[in-house]
């Protein structure tokens, strides 16, 4: 499998938020009225209509020197993704590029993924009764285009490519920066498809868990108990399967047809 990865080098981020707007533009996500709450960061957090954003944080390093940190946040696209594990409807799924995509039509609004994600990424949209999150611009990357955020980044803080190259680039860059610089993302949840090069100690960055894991309860239920229960409920499963064969995943078929047409144009 050919896996892709997005690299976020925070040392090159100027906080311009071109990525934040580009994401909204490509994905046609509406803006909401906000207030300035005493920070540049706006909206306050990811929302159903905001899939990526720059977090602004003032922090002191160990020498007491003030740092104004800019960190783009969004879905990490885990290899071992809690959200995919807990999703009962198959709305969240792994693509063959290694990313985690979301078929909104299938989302039943159960919010299991919202509480399962160690990075607190999926956001529940009450009006639509669905969740929303970044799909790493699946509609673009399937056509050999870079994600909208990467395309918009003027400083090269965002890069995109095959997983191996991005890993090498990330480690080379961390080494080049020296000091406390590190790579964040490849050492947990079997590796993420979004990597950070963090310039400061990773513990300084607000909202970045030091040891993100798939919650134990999910592992116990989904990996151990659920397969057993499915065997027990085999007849129900067979019914669902039959439904699938007869009716098919209607909307996603239509999507892929559209994709083919646009791709050939």
């Amino acid at each position, binding site marked *: 499998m050919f896996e892709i990865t997005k690299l976020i080098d925070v040392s090159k981020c100027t906080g311009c938020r071109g990525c*934040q707007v580009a994401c909204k533009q490509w994905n046609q996500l509406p803006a909401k009225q*906000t*207030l300035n709450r005493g920070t540049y960061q706006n*909206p306050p957090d990811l929302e159903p209509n905001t899939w990526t954003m720059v977090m602004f944080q003032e922090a002191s390093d160990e020498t007491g020197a003030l740092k104004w940190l800019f960190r783009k946040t969004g879905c990490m696209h885990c290899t071992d993704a809690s959200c995919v594990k807990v999703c009962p409807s198959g709305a969240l799924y792994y693509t063959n590029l290694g990313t985690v995509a979301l078929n909104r039509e299938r989302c039943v609004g159960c919010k299991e993924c919202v509480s399962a994600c160690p990075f607190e990424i999926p956001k529940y949209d009450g009006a639509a009764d669905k969740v929303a999150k970044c799909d790493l611009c699946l509609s673009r990357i399937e056509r050999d285009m870079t994600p909208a955020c990467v395309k918009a980044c003027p400083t090269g803080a965002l890069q995109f490519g095959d997983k191996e190259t991005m890993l090498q680039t990330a480690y080379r860059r961390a080494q080049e920066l020296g000091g406390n610089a590190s790579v964040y993302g490849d050492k947990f949840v079997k590796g993420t498809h979004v990597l950070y090069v963090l310039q400061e100690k990773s513990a300084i960055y607000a909202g970045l868990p030091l040891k993100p894991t798939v919650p134990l309860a999910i592992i116990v239920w989904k990996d151990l108990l659920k397969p057993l229960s499915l065997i027990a409920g085999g007849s129900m499963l067979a019914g669902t399967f039959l439904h699938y064969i007869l009716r098919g995943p209607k909307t996603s078929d239509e999507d892929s047809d559209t994709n083919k047409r646009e791709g050939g144009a």
Partner: protein
Amino acid sequence: MGWTQHTVGTQNIRAMSIIQLLLGNMGIAGGGINALRGESNVQGSTDHGLLFHILPGYLKVPPASLSTLKLYNEKYTPTTKEASSLNWWKNYPKYSASLLRAFYGMNTNLEEAYSYLPKIDDGVNYSWLALFDQMYKGKIQGFFAWGMNPAVSGANAGKVRQSLARLDWMVNVNLFDNETGSFWRGPGMDPEKIKTEVFMLPCAASLEKEGSITNSSRLMQWRFKAVSPPGKAKPDGEIMTDLFYRINDRYEKQGGPLKEAITKMTWNYGPKGADGRIRYLDIHAVAKEINGSFLEDKTIEDKGVKKEFKKGDPVPSFAFLQDDGSTSSGNWLYCNSYADKGNMAARRGTKDASGIGLYSEWAWSWPVNRRIIYNGASVDPTGRPWDVKHPVILWDGAKWTGDVPDGVGDPGSGRPPFIMKPEGVASIFGPGLTDGPFPEHYEPLEGPLEKNLLSHQLTNPVIKRWDKAGVGTEMDKVASCDSRFPFVCTTYRVSEHWQTGVLTRWQPWLVEMQPAMFVEIGSEIAREKGIKNGETVVVKSVRGELDAVAIVTSRFKPFKIDGKTVHQVGIPWHYGWVTTATRKYAANDKKPELFTSGDAANLLTPTIGDANTMIPESKAFMVNVVRKEVR
């Protein structure tokens, strides 16, 4: 550009230039003073004569005392005693003649064409601050606010807004209604008492028309039209064409002073109909006129070779421009941009033969596609690059390779590299500036210090003090070392908004990120004043006040000056009342999808300019920040 917004702005830039000169950083790869401008086309606008004192190509606007072209050319054509110096400005008469031909073609002779040029009164300043001062005093009747929003962008914007009320008429050419066009119904205004008649001419945005912009690398880049402008909006060029013909008709019918200045002007910017007028505007015709063409057949000797040109041929480069009226060029610096090889600015070549990132086939830069000016200074007198690893130009034994060499001559020619200076060398000693040949430290007009710690002179002694009796108006107040306004304030931008926000404050995605006027204050002030982060506070100067959201931040640290603690606060300048939720909207007013809050930072800034350029001192003035209830 922040360096320029001080009463010592010109000397700030000179100080930095001197340092770079002493470091040997001129003309070399990675060297020079590279200004970050406030707008993508600032370079282009001054190249083409936007400012009151310069004509296109940095020719001087003639003062009334220079009554003939001959006198004008004599005055501004420098001579030199240095035999080896190229003294490029010796060509001044060629450029002035070609510019007059671009304006008037063969409709008149050069002397008469010169007589049509508007003259400024000797010694009088016509810059922004002076303009609005005269307007306030009722000396100006009509005003075109063309792609500008002075009610937000003008220093001491309160005065600017009052000035607009003293006009008979104003034409607002812009994309959206703004604080200037609607000044008469802004905060504190009574529409009943305002006589100014305002006309709104909606115009096209940059993406809705074709044309070029020139950035600070002097890179002229062609831009293509992406979409058509909405509704009745038109590109500026079409609006100007329409105006030109109407004004022309009025002069033909009614006459008027200097009638011929208009009626004899050429307007060859498109295919003409039976009435002799263009049927539509072809912006390429404008670009070609800027490049210039031969008005008659001409033979010119160039480096020993005779070259034949036919009437109508484009002039290949400014070296071929003539002072006898046989050539036309709307801007000598741009001669070569649209010549025999077509529209050079539209080139998109991505090769970099130089190895130092010149990308000489991407668009075109003036002069003659030279990417680094004064690159003659990148080599020693024998022609060897000072930086051998990053040569800008390199002598291959027979000719220079790399960038287009800058008047350097062959190695060993002894020609000094600063060809725009009569002596051919850069000047550390710089006579001619109003405040002297060397930079000097002065405090801002409004400041926290009673004494200049470095000399006995507190402020720049040659700035024009609008606050003095009989100079400005009652609105030009200054409050220095005044306990009512204890904090130093500076202005800046955020990346989400553009200039006065006329375009960006209507964009929901941008407003979502930066919805409100804010003031950044240090935690010490916040503690002292009991101000909480995110609370709406009042920022006021002696000239005005505005609401702003307090961002309490450790990024603002107090200064220790002469044992005294001085606090600084900062405000962005893009906001204005037109896009707020609290204003009144008439039935046909466009409402923004997302509202902003707060008004213009310039309501606080003083009427004071740099001693040489009159650029307002927006980077340092005095304010207070208070909680709303203690307003």
